[in-house]
């Protein structure tokens, strides 16, 4: 499996009469973009550009996607969602680096949060630094929530591919090639290096809490192996709207930093021997089954060590801890990554579930720590935000976990915690 990512670095986006890239500017024909989105979705959409530094607060955020498309004639991005099916992870994929498509709609039961493009809040979200194409979908009261959400997801994915098509005739700023053949690892040449696998726990627990593998929810999945290049190329799509810092939107699945680091260290610091994905189920027995199946698969990969990440908080701590405990019991060393819910002063227990085996834990920060946000000039979406009674434009004090991506569970962001 050989994946080539051709990166086009975009520093500015603006509306124009055609969708095109000129040096580092992406111009967007809003009418054509709306037509592409609405072709199959039958929704009404308002397209707004949000640039870093603008005094804008975005709320009602659903999925966030990096614009990507397969090279001309190279197949479909996000296979399984539309078009002819061809597995992800091979060939050339064009990437608009620095741009994000942000789906926005007010849906009850979504755990709300925000992205500030300016002020203190902008320090905490990776999406305060991207040029954002915000797709605001008007509510359709007579439509079932599941159907509304499904159409928005498809619209966002299509918008992502449409925008990236502007790069088809352009030479990329940077090209990266990812190739991994775990079966052909030369044991003799690399006998001093440890075999390391990645257990990538996805969260799929029902309506508005789903994650998709090739277009299907992983709701019923126990565990499976998957090539890391498939994940980097759109095999996994998010429809999970838990607390914003506890979610892994599609943007992070595409840019999973653990996979990137393991690739980079492959054959010099370690042998990257594969990825196992599994689901964090909503019942305990199903959780135990997924853990058992995942550990069995990493054993078959011959892993001596694993990195484990999770999505979601509370019950997901149990998945993380059971996985860690069972790996260690099988003599597979573990490093686990998570964020904390340690109270506003950091003095509460950080996790809902802990085990002694989890002695190498990397923290991505404390979700409960309060941050004071500056007042903004404009708000996209209507909230409401939990615990906030003020006008949403005003200066607000909120837990940092409500900011999208702030304490990201894959370590995409740079926050952490310090113990005193």
């Amino acid at each position: 499996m050989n994946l080539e990512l051709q990166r086009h670095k975009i520093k500015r986006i603006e509306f124009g009469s055609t969708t095109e890239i000129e040096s580092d500017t992406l111009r967007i024909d809003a009418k054509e973009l709306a037509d592409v989105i609405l072709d199959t979705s039958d929704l009404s959409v308002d397209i707004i550009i949000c640039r870093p530094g603008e005094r804008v607060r975005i709320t009602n955020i659903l999925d966030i996607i990096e614009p990507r498309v397969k090279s001309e004639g190279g197949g479909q991005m996000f296979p399984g969602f539309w078009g002819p099916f061809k597995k992800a992870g091979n060939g050339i994929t064009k990437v608009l680096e620095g741009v994000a498509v942000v789906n926005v709609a007010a849906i009850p039961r979504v755990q709300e949060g925000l992205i500030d493009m300016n002020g203190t809040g902008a320090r905490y979200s990776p999406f305060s630094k991207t040029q954002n194409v915000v797709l605001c979908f008007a509510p359709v009261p007579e439509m079932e929530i599941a159907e509304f959400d499904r159409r928005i997801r498809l619209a966002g994915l299509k918008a992502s591919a449409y925008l990236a098509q502007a790069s088809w005739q352009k030479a990329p700023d940077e090209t990266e090639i990812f190739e991994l053949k775990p079966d052909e690892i030369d044991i003799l040449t690399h006998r001093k290096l440890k075999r390391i696998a990645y257990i990538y726990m996805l969260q799929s627990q029902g309506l508005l809490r789903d994650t998709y593998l090739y277009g299907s929810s992983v709701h019923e999945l126990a565990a499976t192996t998957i090539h890391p290049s498939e994940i980097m190329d759109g095999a996994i799509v998010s429809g999970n709207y838990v607390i914003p810092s506890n979610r892994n939107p599609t943007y992070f699945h595409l840019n999973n930093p653990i996979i990137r680091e393991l690739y980079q260290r492959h054959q010099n610091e370690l042998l990257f021997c594969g990825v196992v994905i599994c689901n964090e189920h909503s019942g305990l027995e199903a959780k135990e089954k997924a853990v058992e199946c995942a550990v069995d698969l990493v054993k078959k990969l011959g892993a001596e060590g694993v990195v484990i990440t999770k999505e979601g908080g509370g019950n997901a701590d149990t998945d993380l801890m059971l996985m860690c405990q069972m790996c260690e019991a099988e003599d597979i060393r573990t490093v686990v990554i998570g964020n904390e819910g340690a109270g506003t002063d950091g003095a509460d227990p950080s996790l809902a579930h802990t085990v002694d085996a989890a002695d190498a834990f990397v923290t991505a920060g404390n979700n409960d720590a309060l941050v004071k946000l500056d007042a903004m000039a404009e708000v996209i979406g209507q909230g409401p935000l939990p615990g906030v009674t003020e006008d949403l434009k005003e200066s607000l004090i909120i837990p940092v976990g409500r900011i999208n991506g702030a304490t990201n569970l894959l370590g995409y962001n740079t926050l952490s915690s310090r113990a005193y």
Partner: protein
Amino acid sequence: MAKEIEKAGILAAHICTIVPISQTVGANRIIPAVAIPHPLGDPAIPEEEELQLRRSLVEKALTTLKTPVKDQLVVK
């Protein structure tokens, strides 16, 4: 919640889906529930069976309240 209620001198039985979390938090009487989105019900089974299931969970909780415990008790 279970701990705070017991601190106030009132016995508590915790009906909880993810038992290890209840154990970590320190509940004394734990009754395993169905699933996170529907702890006390199961949309996949017929209504009558579900009623039975719901009743049995609540009855287990009430019976457990009468049971003296030394260590954390997880009702099977």
